C-alpha cells in the first residue's frame, strides 16, 4: 500500500489536470461555447464575450455562474445572451450582491427580507433615481473618508451602470424584433437618405420616410452612447486594428455607407435565434460569423478561443485545490510514512506549480507582457516564485518542509488572487508610464521574486515555531536544516529585493530624471531590503541564534505584506494603482496573526514540546 501512494498521487494529479484542460462541451443544444469565443473590444483590448460575461459576473456577484431562485444554473454565456437579447428575463435574475444594511433599506429590502442579499435589476428599478442621487452625494468625498454606506452606494451605482451598458451592447432598449427593424431599415436607407437630403435643401420630399429615418438615427445615436463594449470589428483590420465600434456607431455609419455591416446583422440574427430559442439557426449563425471574421481577424479569433478555454479550465483554481491537498498530505507525512507521503505531496506541489506556470504563461501570451502587470498578477507570481523555491528546497532536503510551505503559500497567494479578481477583468491595459515591457520584465519580476522569497523565509519560520512549540517533531536535525533553509532564503531575498528595488530606481531615473523619490511603494521595497540586511547582520554578529533568526524572518512577513498591499492603501503616491478597500482588514488580521506567532516563538525554550522531550 505504502509503495503505491506516490504512484496514486501521480495518477490523481494527471487526471485532475487532464479533466480541467479538456475543452468543455456545450451543455445545451446551443453552441454557447462558440458564442463565448466571439471577439469584442472592451476596456482597450480584444477579448472573448466569455471573458466579458465572467468578469462582469465576478464584479456583480463574486462568482462566475448564475443561480436562479428556482435553483437552475446558467452558464456565463447563457446569462450574457439573456442580458443582450432577453432583458425582460435577465432583469429578474438575482445577480447583484449587497451586504450593506443601509443600502438594503434604501431599496426597502432590509428587515422584510433580510436573507436576500442577491437582488435582481428589477428590484432596483423603482429606486434607480435615489441610488443615483445618493451616489452623486458620496462621489466628491475622498475615497478613504467615505462611510460604508457611501462606498456601497457608489459600488452599486457602478454595478447598475455596468449592467445597463451590457444590456445596450447590441439592441435598442424596448425593441421586440431588432432583426426585423434592421432589415426594414436596410430597405429604407436609400429612399430615407434621399428624402432627408431633399428636406434639408427645402425641396419636395417624402416626409414620412424622412421622419422615420431621422428617428432611427436618433435612436442609434443613443445606442452608440449607451455602451462601451465594441462588438463591430474595424473595417480595416491591418491599418487600424483598434478602430472597433459599438453597435450604435456602426448603425450610424450605415447612413453613409448605404447599408448595414454584416457583423451588425450577424449579431442581430444571433439575437433573433436566441429570442426564439431556435438552436439550428443559432448554431448556423455562429460559424458563419466566425468565417467572416477569419478575414483579417484570424489571430484575434485564435486568441479569444484560447482565452475562453483558459477561462473554463480555471488553472489557478485547480492549482489552489492541489496545493491544499499537498499541504495536508505533507503534514501527515511528518507523523506517518514520511517517505511515500512526502513524495506524494511533492508530486501534488509540482503538478500544481506546473499548472500555475501554464496559466501564467497563457496570460503572458494573451497580453503580450511579462508576468506581473498588476496587483492580481503579482499575487500569482509571488506564489509561483515562492513555490519554485520550495520545490528546490524539497529536492535538496526531502523532509516535506518545502511541500508544507509550498502548500501554504500557494494556497494563500491564489486565494488573494481570487479576491483581487473580483474587481473585473484582470488582463488590464497598462497605464502610460507602466507601458514598458523591458522594465516590467526586469524591475517588477525581480522585486516580486524578492517579495516571494521574503515570504518563504517567514513561512519556514512559522513551521519551525509551530512544530517546535506544539509538537515533538522538531528534532535537532530538522531544526538545523530549517535554520539553514531560512538563512539561505534570506540571502536570496536580500539579493532579489535589493536588485529589484534598485532597478526600480533606475527606471525612475530613466523616465523621471530622479533615482529615488521616497514614494510609498519605493519606501516599502526599501524596508524589505533593510529588514533582510538587518537579519543577516544580526546573525553574523551573533546577536540572534536559531530562534531569533526565526522570529526575525517571521517579522519579514509583516514587512512584506505592508510593502505589497499596505502602501497601496495609503491612496497616495505614484504606485497607488492597486487600491483595495476590503483588503485592509485581511491585512490587519494577517499582521496580528504574525505578531501572535512571534509571541509564541518567544515562549521560553524549556516550554517548547520538542525541546522538552529532547533537551
Amino acid at each position, binding site marked *: 500500500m505504502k509503495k503505491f501512494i506516490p504512484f496514486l498521487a501521480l495518477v490523481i494529479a494527471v487526471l485532475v489536470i487532464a479533466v480541467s484542460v479538456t475543452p468543455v462541451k456545450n451543455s445545451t443544444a446551443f453552441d454557447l461555447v462558440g458564442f463565448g469565443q466571439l471577439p469584442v*473590444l*472592451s*476596456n*482597450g483590448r480584444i477579448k472573448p464575450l466569455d471573458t466579458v460575461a465572467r468578469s462582469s459576473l465576478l464584479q456583480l456577484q463574486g462568482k462566475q455562474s448564475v443561480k436562479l431562485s428556482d435553483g437552475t444554473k446558467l452558464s456565463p454565456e447563457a446569462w450574457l445572451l439573456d442580458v443582450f437579447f432577453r432583458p425582460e428575463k435577465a432583469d429578474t435574475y438575482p445577480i447583484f450582491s449587497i451586504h450593506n444594511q443601509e443600502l438594503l433599506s434604501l431599496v426597502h429590502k432590509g428587515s422584510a427580507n433580510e436573507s436576500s442579499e442577491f437582488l435582481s435589476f428589477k428590484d432596483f428599478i423603482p429606486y434607480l433615481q435615489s441610488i443615483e442621487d445618493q451616489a452623486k452625494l458620496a462621489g466628491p468625498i475622498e475615497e478613504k473618508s467615505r462611510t460604508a454606506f457611501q462606498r456601497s452606494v457608489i459600488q452599486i451605482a457602478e454595478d447598475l451602470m455596468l449592467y445597463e451598458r451590457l444590456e445596450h451592447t447590441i439592441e435598442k432598449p424596448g425593441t421586440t424584433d431588432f432583426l426585423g427593424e434592421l432589415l426594414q431599415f436596410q430597405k429604407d436607407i436609400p429612399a430615407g437618405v434621399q428624402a432627408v437630403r431633399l428636406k434639408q435643401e427645402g425641396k419636395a420630399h417624402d416626409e414620412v420616410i424622412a421622419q422615420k429615418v431621422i428617428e432611427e438615427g436618433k435612436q442609434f445615436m443613443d445606442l452608440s452612447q449607451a455602451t*462601451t*463594449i*465594441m462588438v463591430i470589428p474595424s473595417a480595416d483590420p491591418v491599418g487600424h486594428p*483598434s*478602430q*472597433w465600434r459599438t453597435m450604435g456607431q456602426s448603425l450610424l455609419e450605415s447612413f453613409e455607407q448605404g447599408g448595414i455591416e454584416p457583423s451588425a446583422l450577424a449579431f442581430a440574427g444571433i439575437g433573433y435565434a436566441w429570442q426564439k430559442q431556435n438552436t439550428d439557426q443559432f448554431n448556423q449563425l455562429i460559424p458563419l460569423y466566425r468565417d467572416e471574421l477569419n478575414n483579417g481577424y484570424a489571430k484575434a479569433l485564435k486568441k479569444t478561443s484560447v482565452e475562453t478555454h483558459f477561462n473554463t479550465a480555471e488553472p489557478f483554481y485547480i492549482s489552489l485545490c492541489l496545493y491544499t491537498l499537498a499541504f495536508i498530505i505533507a503534514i501527515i507525512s511528518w507523523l506517518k510514512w514520511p517517505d511515500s507521503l512526502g513524495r506524494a505531496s511533492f508530486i501534488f506541489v509540482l503538478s500544481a506549480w506546473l499548472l500555475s506556470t501554464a496559466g501564467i504563461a497563457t496570460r503572458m501570451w494573451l497580453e503580450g507582457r511579462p508576468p506581473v502587470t498588476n496587483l492580481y498578477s503579482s499575487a500569482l507570481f509571488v506564489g509561483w516564485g515562492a513555490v519554485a523555491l520550495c520545490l528546490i528546497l524539497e529536492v*535538496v532536503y526531502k523532509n516535506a518542509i518545502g511541500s508544507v510551505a509550498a502548500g501554504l503559500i500557494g494556497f494563500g497567494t491564489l486565494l488573494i488572487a481570487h479576491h483581487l479578481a473580483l474587481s473585473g477583468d484582470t488582463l*488590464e*491595459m497598462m*497605464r*502610460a*508610464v507602466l*507601458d*514598458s515591457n523591458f*522594465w516590467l520584465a526586469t524591475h517588477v519580476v525581480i522585486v516580486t521574486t524578492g517579495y516571494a522569497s521574503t515570504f518563504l523565509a517567514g513561512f519556514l519560520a512559522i513551521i519551525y515555531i509551530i512544530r517546535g512549540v506544539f509538537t515533538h517533531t522538531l528534532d535537532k536535525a530538522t531544526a538545523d536544516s530549517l535554520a*539553514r533553509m531560512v538563512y*539561505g532564503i534570506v*540571502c536570496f531575498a*536580500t*539579493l532579489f529585493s*535589493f*536588485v529589484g528595488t*534598485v532597478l526600480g*530606481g*533606475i*527606471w525612475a*531615473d*530613466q*523616465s*523621471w*530624471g*530622479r*533615482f*529615488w523619490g*521616497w514614494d*510609498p511603494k519605493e*519606501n*516599502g521595497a*526599501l*524596508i524589505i531590503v*533593510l*529588514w533582510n*540586511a*538587518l537579519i543577516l*547582520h*544580526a546573525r*553574523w*554578529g551573533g*546577536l540572534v541564534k536559531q530562534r531569533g533568526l526565526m522570529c526575525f524572518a517571521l517579522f519579514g512577513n509583516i*514587512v512584506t505584506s*505592508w510593502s505589497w498591499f499596505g*502602501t497601496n492603501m*495609503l*491612496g*497616495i*503616491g505614484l504606485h497607488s494603482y492597486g487600491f483595495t478597500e476590503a483588503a485592509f482588514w485581511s491585512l490587519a488580521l494577517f499582521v496580528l496573526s504574525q505578531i501572535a506567532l512571534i509571541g509564541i516563538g518567544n515562549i521560553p525554550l524549556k516550554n517548547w514540546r520538542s525541546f522538552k522531550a529532547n533537551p
Partner: protein
Amino acid sequence: MTALLRQFKDFFVSLRLTVVLLGLSIILVFWATLAQTDLGVYGVQQKFFHSLFIMVKIPGTEFPFPVFPGGYCIGGLLFINLIIAQISRLHLSWRKFGIWITHLGLIMLLVGELLSGLLQQDNDIVLDNGQTKNYAESQRQNELVITDVSDPKIDDVTSIPLDLVADLKTVQVPQIPFQIVAKQFFPNAEIASRAQAPNAPAAPATQGVGTQAVLMPLAVTVKDNERNEPAASIELVGSEGSLGTWLVSADPAMPVQKFDYKGKTWKIAMRATRRYLPFSLTLVKFSHDVYPGTDIPKNFSSLVRLHEDSNQSTREVLIYMNNPLRTHGLTFYQSGFANQDRTAILQVVRNPSWQLPYIACLLMTGGLLFQFSIHLVGFFSRRKPEVKLA
C-alpha cells in the same frame, strides 16, 4: 590607544550598532511613509530625510524638540560605522571580497543620496501648444519681481526672495529708485474680482488691480498635485513719499500691473521663481492617447523644438513616457497636462550626481552575487559527503 578611544572605536565598529541603525532607518522610512498623507512627499523629505533630527513642537508651544534621529543622522552614523568597521574588522581576502564591494557600493549610494538631496533641483515648464519659453518655474518657490520695461527690447528684472516679503521687510536696492515695503503676506490665497464677491472686504491695495479685487486667504496645501499661490500687499516708497500699495499674487490669472515713475515704466508681480535655461523650448504639439473605448491613458507625448542661441541650432525632440529629454545636465520629462490637452507640463530635473546610484548599484549587485554564490557553493560542497554517507 587610550581606553576612551578604544571604547569609541568598539562602539562604532560593532555590528550591534549596524543592526540598531538598520532598525532605526526602517522605523524612519515607515513613519515617513505614513506621514505623507499629511505632509506630502516634499514635506516628508525635508522633515524626515534631509534633517539631523525629526523635530516635533512641544504641545502648546512653538518650541521644537528632537524626537527621533533624521535621515542625515542615521545615514551619517551608518556611513561612519561602515567605514570604521570595514577598515578595522574585515580583512582583505577573497572570502570577504563580496562584502567589500557591497559596502563600497553602499557608501557610494549613501553619498549619492546625500548629494542629490543637496543638489537636485525640480522645476516645471508649462507650455501651451505653440508657446516658447526659455525658463522653467519652481514648483514651490515664488519671487517678487520689479521689472523696468521702459526699453521695449530689454526687460531689466530685479527678483526679491519671498522670504524677505514673508518677514515683512523693507528692501532697497541700487537698480530701483524706490523702496519696497512688504505690508502683508499670505502664504496661500485666492484673488477674485470685487464684482464676484461684492460683500467681501476690500483687498489691501490703493493702486493697480488690487483696488478692484478681494483677497481670500487659504490654508497652505501640502498635496503634491496642488500649488500654494502666495499673495502680498506691497507699498512702494519713493524719495518724495509713498507711491501707493499694490496687491501682488502668484495666481497665473493675475493681470499685469504697470506704473510710471520718474520717466520709466515699471512692472510689479509675484510669480513662481524662474530658472533660466541656456536654450528655448517651443511646444509644437502635445498628444494624449487613450486605449480604444476607455479613458485609460496609453501615452502622453510632447513634440518640442529646442533652439540654442549660442550656436543657432534648432532641433525637434519628442518627449514621451519613459523617454525624457536629457540635455545640458537637465532632464525634461512629461509630468502632466492641462487645458483640455492643449498645455503640456514638463518637469525639469537637475541632478548632477545622477550617475552615482548606477555605479553603486552595479557594485552592490556584483558584491552580493559574489558573496552569496560563495555561501551556496560552500553549502553544497559541505552537503555532498552527508549524502554519500546516507
